[in-house]
């Protein structure tokens, strides 16, 4: 599973809104089976980076490769194919509010597969069971709690058994236990399905619990300051900003030596 085969390669990516450059010179590789963390302070462009990776926003400069295919240079049909192999969990679930949970999950299955209704029903029930929402098929998103919405969003993201799952702030707005359970679920999915997982987060507990690779973005430097296994980063990085981030500011901005 963890055979270091590159899955997504980002090369010299520059992200900009108009003439305002958010980040530049981003270069990193996400391997197959990684749980890759995109971290950084608020407003540094974590979510924007994710939007570049999932094909919602074109880079100002640089390239994003899926395997050996340059995503933004590929023709639209190929891009659509790649995008159909991606599952995204948005920050607040982004479930379609006029549909029940079952209909939310069934929609991609209806659109992209030739399965019959009973088979789709089985798959929907499976996905909901996997995220611990068995029996909630007929609920509307407005009728369930925020944490449940998030899990239902995950069930929808997994509908087509994507190769890559993206999570935008999965633990935001969740209680610690639910957040922990979601982390466990992410690990379990990686281990059993072998999916590549990309997580945008600034929750330190999650970062250390699940991440095995990462990139740290900084708003002031407008680029990445470091990356790699988060625990290793904490132990070895000399960058004061990364150290402050990974220790919740306890080491201030003074360079300090690794603990762990």
């Amino acid at each position: 599973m963890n055979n270091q085969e590159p899955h997504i390669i980002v090369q010299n990516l520059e992200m900009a809104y108009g003439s305002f450059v958010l980040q530049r010179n981003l270069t990193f590789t996400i391997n197959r089976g990684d749980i890759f963390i995109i971290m950084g302070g608020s407003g540094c462009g974590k979510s924007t980076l994710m939007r570049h990776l999932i094909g919602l926003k074109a880079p100002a400069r640089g390239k994003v490769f899926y395997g050996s295919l340059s995503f933004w240079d590929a023709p639209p049909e190929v891009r659509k194919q790649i995008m159909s192999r991606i599952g995204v969990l948005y920050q607040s679930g982004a479930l379609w509010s006029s549909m029940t949970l079952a209909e939310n999950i069934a929609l991609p299955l209806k659109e992209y597969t030739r399965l019959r209704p009973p088979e789709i029903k089985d798959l929907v029930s499976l996905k909901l069971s996997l995220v611990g929402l068995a029996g909630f098929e007929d609920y509307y998103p407005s009728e369930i709690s925020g944490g449940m919405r998030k899990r239902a969003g995950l069930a929808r993201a997994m509908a087509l058994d994507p190769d890559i799952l993206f999570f935008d702030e999965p633990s935001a707005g969740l209680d610690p236990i639910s957040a922990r359970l979601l982390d466990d679920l992410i690990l379990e999915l990686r281990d059993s399905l072998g999916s590549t997982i990309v997580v945008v987060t600034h929750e330190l507990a999650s970062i250390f619990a699940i991440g095995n690779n990462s990139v740290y973005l900084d708003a002031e430097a407008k680029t990445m300051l470091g990356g790699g296994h988060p625990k290793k980063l904490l132990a070895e990085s000399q960058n004061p900003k990364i150290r402050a981030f990974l220790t919740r500011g306890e080491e201030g901005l003074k360079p300090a030596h690794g603990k762990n």
Partner: protein
Amino acid sequence: MLFKTSKASAPEHNQALSTSQVSSSPLHLDCELHSPDTLLMRLAGNWTIASRPPSVHDIENQLRTNKQLKKITFDAAGIDGWDSSLIAFLRNVLKLGETAGIAVLTDGLPHGVQRLVRLAAAVPERTGARKDSMPEPLLARIGAQAVNFSLGTRDMLAFIGDAFCAFCKFLTGAARFQRSDFLSSIQSCGIESLPIVSLISLLVGLILAFVGAVQLRMFGAQIYVADLVGIAMVRVMGAIMTGIIMTGRMGAAFAAELGTMQVNEEIDALETMGISPMEFLVLPRMLALTLMMPLLCLYADLMGILGGMIVGVGMLDLNVHEYFNQTRGAVTLTFMWIGLFHSIVFGVLVALAGCLRGMQCGRSASAVGNATTSAVVTGIVSIIVATAIITVICDVLGI
């Protein structure tokens, strides 16, 4: 004893997910009796959602015919690829096993599959979570509708009362809202509505004149087209047309805006700060629309008369001066006051309908859509009903 059933999915169903892995081998399932009490399932090929899983029906039949079975085991050596399609199938087999009292041993399956099967069973279905899908009896539905209607009427009356209280507070100068909010509402109710009001009322005047001209020309009384258009526009049509335009423009906008604020919990935020949404949001909008409606109505009257004049001059060979004088003679100030009264009433009604539906909005995207539709429908219906009532009253009063 050995029996064998095999079921491969039809190949033409395999091409659904064009991006999926090389779908070389279709999925394949063999069931054989390993020993008298053990059913061995051999799984092979690609068990992905690109191909249809076999039905569990055959397995169910086997379980039923063979009473000796005690357990089901799996051999997954031939599997090329799998995804949740396989897990869904296994869950059905597990369910069958449970009902038939047969042990299903999953050890022969890939490690990941076992973990997912276990994960899916980890959180049992919460009792009582599943909704009753029993259709309600007709009588209950009628009853529920009636209760809803009376509750809706009560809400509407409460809203009108609240709006009136907010207005009284405004008169005493105690109402809290932002001047900029009020001014921007004035802007969109007033100046920004002028183009559409011009176009529609000009055309309505034109149409009235056309319809009248055809009839009046038969008596050689073309000049009375000016009376017809003037009185109709000033007394009622100008107000109704502006009312309907403003329902579509502002009533819908109010409902959508307040509805979205409701979805985003912005209205709750105002309330928790002790700021009444009635004063802060509803009042400026109602004031703006009620103030602008009479002005728009006057403008619409003018445009309508202009439309009539175009027909009169262009088609009926009347001259401008003649038409103008005829109109001036026909349209009295009373008519104008009646028209203005209509428009003020419509302004209140349209703003009330828009704000009421917006404030009542649910917490989803579709609820905002419903609120907008409902605001427009309520607005137009109340305009027509109000016109009828005012007309009857005017008739009784003899004006």
